[in-house]
């Protein structure tokens, strides 16, 4: 079965500092997609970043970047220059290529301290 594990239920970071959220996954597929979604208290799941497994280059979106290690099945999210608005639940998700569904981890609650 495909599973996604986020080993850090909670993390905190000082404003302007850098934080890394961990995610590992288990799959026998060779082609798939990985995502990080952010869920603030408003409940709206917001896509932060997307990575195609066939791409070796790590995806980046402004202050957000990933460290994708395919052999280790690891997909961590790095948030640079953390801002108060980054405080939220962060979910790592996996989707096999050609599949219709996302498999989510349990989430990491990120607190940003001023």
């Amino acid at each position, binding site marked *: 079965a495909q599973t996604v594990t986020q080993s850090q239920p909670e993390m905190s970071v000082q404003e302007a500092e850098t934080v890394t959220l961990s995610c590992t996954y288990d799959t026998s597929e060779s082609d798939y997609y990985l995502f990080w979604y952010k869920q603030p208290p408003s409940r709206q799941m*917001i896509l932060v970043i997307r990575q195609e497994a066939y791409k070796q280059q790590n995806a980046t979106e402004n202050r957000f970047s990933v460290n994708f290690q395919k052999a280790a099945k690891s997909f961590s999210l790095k948030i640079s220059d953390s801002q108060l608005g980054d405080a939220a639940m962060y979910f790592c998700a996996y989707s096999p290529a050609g599949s219709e569904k996302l498999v989510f981890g349990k989430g990491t609650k990120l607190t940003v301290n001023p």
Partner: protein
Amino acid sequence: GAGVSQSPSNKVTEKGKDVELRCDPISGHTALYWYRQSLGQGLEFLIYFQGNSAPDKSGLPSDRFSAERTGGSVSTLTIQRTQQEDSAVYLCASSLGLTDTQYFGPGTRLTVL
């Protein structure tokens, strides 16, 4: 443009009643998905639609759950004879095509008393 919208935002119902949850996807998105987010189970996939068709209903928790989509747009998730364990946030997402990035709505928080 407008994102995915869901209604109602919150719903409180009594055990045994039926409820309908509505999802209005992003215009032009052909695929639509329902997920359930609960404290004990995290986020779980329920069902997806490609157009008006739902090829796989095996993710629905029980036969009290059903979903439909008409006109390739709005979808309704219906829960009959609600139980307390149905209490959760129900999230809807849509995507341009079946394997494209999914964009989520704000969810409906269902509380069954």
